[in-house]
């Protein structure tokens, strides 16, 4: 084999003098190029990296927490008491070892606030689990990214600035966004963050169900009880938090129409990225 290869690579005298002209004439440049096999990073890895970069440039550290959580961190500490109807907002997988699969990345807010000095800026990427039926837009395992900023005077106006900056950089477009009232027990006030539909530019289309807007994230000002449950004095600190599903953002960015593709392991999907 080595010999064969060597012959075709090395120019001998004959090549140089006699064949050159003839070969050039017969050479078919329309033969398709050789297919080069490549590796592929998962689309969620790629968008996660982008999200992390954007927030790191704004001084946010990346922090992680466990997938298996206690009821305290996942619910009680986040101002969601037992037997409270608010718990119904999260369909939860419980484990036989007494823990549960976290339904959001918010428990890391408490874990981090407990152990670190303020002020702080963090984002928290990680798996979350919801015991829900799956379809093209619902999954029971999702990748969420949580953001938390706490300082002496952090306001809703600041949240708007950071979130707006993030969307503009992530979508590389002048994306409009808006806050609507929402309810999360661990933030007050609470918002639903929508962005202008990337498909129709607010004109209304099937992708945004005609509204011109797409919901992408939940956010709000950190609830005083969250500070209290983290061992802090609420009146000393202000902060905001947000959380979004990375799948949703990735779907919008690459126009993916079925959320189940991400964990399908289908190479025909994965090798497009």
């Amino acid at each position: 084999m080595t010999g064969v290869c060597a012959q075709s690579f090395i120019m001998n005298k004959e090549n140089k003098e006699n064949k050159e002209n003839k070969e050039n004439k017969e050479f078919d440049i329309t033969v398709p190029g050789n297919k080069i096999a490549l590796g592929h990073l998962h689309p969620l890895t790629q968008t996660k990296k982008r999200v992390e970069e954007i927030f790191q440039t704004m001084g946010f550290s990346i922090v992680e927490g466990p997938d298996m959580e206690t009821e305290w961190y996942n619910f009680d500490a986040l101002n969601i008491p037992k037997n409270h109807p608010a718990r119904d907002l999260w369909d939860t997988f419980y484990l036989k070892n007494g823990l549960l699969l976290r339904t959001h990345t918010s428990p890391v807010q408490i874990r981090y606030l407990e152990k670190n000095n303020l002020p702080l800026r963090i984002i928290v990427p990680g798996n979350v689990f919801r015991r829900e039926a799956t379809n093209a837009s619902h999954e029971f395992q999702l990748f969420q990214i949580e953001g938390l900023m706490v300082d002496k005077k952090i306001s809703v106006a600041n949240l708007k600035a950071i979130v707006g900056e993030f969307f503009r950089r992530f979508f590389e477009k002048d994306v409009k966004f808006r806050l609507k009232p929402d309810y999360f027990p661990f933030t007050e006030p609470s918002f639903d963050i929508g962005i202008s539909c990337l498909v129709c530019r607010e004109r209304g289309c099937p992708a945004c169900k005609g509204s011109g807007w797409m919901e992408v994230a939940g956010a709000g000002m950190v609830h005083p009880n969250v500070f209290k449950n983290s061992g802090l004095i609420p009146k000393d600190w202000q902060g905001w938090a947000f959380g979004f599903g990375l799948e949703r953002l990735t779907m919008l960015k690459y126009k993916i129409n079925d959320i189940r593709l991400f964990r399908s392991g289908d190479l025909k999907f994965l090798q497009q990225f």
Partner: protein
Amino acid sequence: MVFSYGWLQSFFQKKLPKPEKLAEVLTMSFAEIEKVKKEREDFVLDIDVKPSRASDCLSHLGIVREIAAITKLQYKEPLSKFKAVKELKSKNFVSVDIRCQQACPRYTIKIIVDVKVCPSPKWLKHRLKVCGLKPINNIVDIANYAMLETGQPLHAFDFDKIKGRKIIVRKAKKGEEITTFDEKSYCLDQDILIIADAKKPIAIAGIKGGKETGIDKNTKTVVLESANFNQGIIRKGSRKLNLKTDAATRFEQGIDPNLTEFAINRACYLIQKISKGKIAHGLADIYPKKALPKRIRLDLDYVERLLGIKIPEREIKSILEKLRFKLKTQNLKLLDVEIPTFRLDISLQEDLIEEIARIYGYEKIKPVFPIVSLIPFKRNLEIFWEGRAKDILEQARFSEVYNYSFISKGDAKNFGGKINKLIEIENPSSIEHRYLRPSLIPNLLKNIQKNQKLYFETFKTHRVLKSETFKTLRILKSKEIKIFELGKIFQAPKLEKRTLSGVMTGDAFYQVKGVIDLLLSKLGISNIQYCEHRTVERGLKSCWWQPPKCAEIKINGEQIGFLGEVSFRVLSDLKIELKTIVFDIDFEKLVRFCSEEKTYQPISRYPSAIRDIAVLVPKRIKVNEVLNKINAVKGQRGLIKDVDLFDVYEGRNIPNNKKNFAFHIIYQAENKTLSSKEIDDAHQKIVKALEERKGWEVRK
């Protein structure tokens, strides 16, 4: 919950915005309107009322208050004044006995006599239907109507069917039963709160009424109940009986106990108007601990600080008053706010600030970048090395997959894992996802199974074109399936661990080994060893592997993972038709060895020379032993730059029990050009060293 646009409009003298417009206004300042649907002359608004506002806004009146605050339109409270008959006293008809005070903070009763039970008027039926309720008769319909309007569930009993003129609120006894008005029977126990007469249960409190005491066309005297029940008890009962009703939904979210009186009066007003009944004087009202309004001191500076915008004080006051908060100015910067008791959700300043901001309009808050100290972000090494490792594997032409963190019992068994080491889900969504994955490999192999047809399709198409064998081979090679995942695995009792695993199809043990070498060296790790995987010690796990093609990966003697060929048994269970090599690395251990340090190795200016050596050894000898022998010589002389195995051969022309290794040996010195004598001398030393071993023979 669904609301009738026409009904909402009836509270206002001025015209409301058009349904779509109203929906948008409410969505931006109150709660999401999921749908607006035309229903004959009316429109239905489907409003996603959040749990925080369920106590006052699962009612048309609640929504009306919101609309009034947002649009600044005036509305009228519904009429609730009626004429009572002085001679009849509600209290004299039945006695009420509350056996558990905590479960029933308030119980209110009104008696209506001489009612005429018949179908409701059209307008009433229409409103119920629009809101998804079925009209039954005028009395029941009015009770439901009052609930949809005020948010207070009401219940009507037929007085003549109540035994012993007694109403008792108590926990059910085990074994008691009730048949509800929809003909369904329920077995009760001490967790369920009931309304009973002298003999037996007549209603499941706050959830559903019983059949026997229900209103029918012969009913003459009505006992109208408007009560307040503890939310936790109703929630528990409703879950236990698996019975969700409009009443239960409202009670389990909590309702203002002061509402019972207004709601019962409103219902009486309607009964008098519609069914001409005579209403007894006064209320039978058991309400030992009256709910009083809370007071919150609001700091206007804090409002500005939290929102990042200055809202004029006048505006703040006007918004709060429109929402029925009562205000008292304390001083320039402080407001004392009295919270109406129906706003169970308001208990902190922050709650009031949300009220102010959402009505004022979130869109009016302009983005402002925070002014904070320049604290640089902390580098997260775990994430950094995770990114590096993924990039390296991508460069090695692996594709990354994300699998679910779950496996089925079958998967667990297939891989010989001990079930008691697994973490089981208490409430799995399907049997496919019953355990947390103890390894990334089962799901990765399933990925292979799913994708292997891709491989075979290509194989088939290209086999047809026989003339293009070379091309076929080439394409086949590019269709090898190479995938990896970096994710968490879980082990009983409570361990979770980040792991990196990969799978490659084909007879590719050495290729995968090469990938591991590449990965580790790019992560700055040297001193890698591969040791025989002691399958016997591993017990059950051994049946995963196809011995002897499996090895432990060690760094500085510490095991960090393994690689090996998956056993034919496992593959055939999974219907995988390709040989498959797997690697599995404890990523948390690995990260401890990773390093970004690198030192440049000077490139020798003197030429190198290559001499080949072929050595015949007994079959059981491993290449490592030969290499060690050569390297031992290198240590003495310092002239050998590299030793490169290029062929392993056994078979024809070689004795049966032997095999042949062939190496390139590269000679180079740092400080001079080596003479051919020097090279020959060194080479001879190697030959001699190798031949010292019995049964080893250097072929000349």
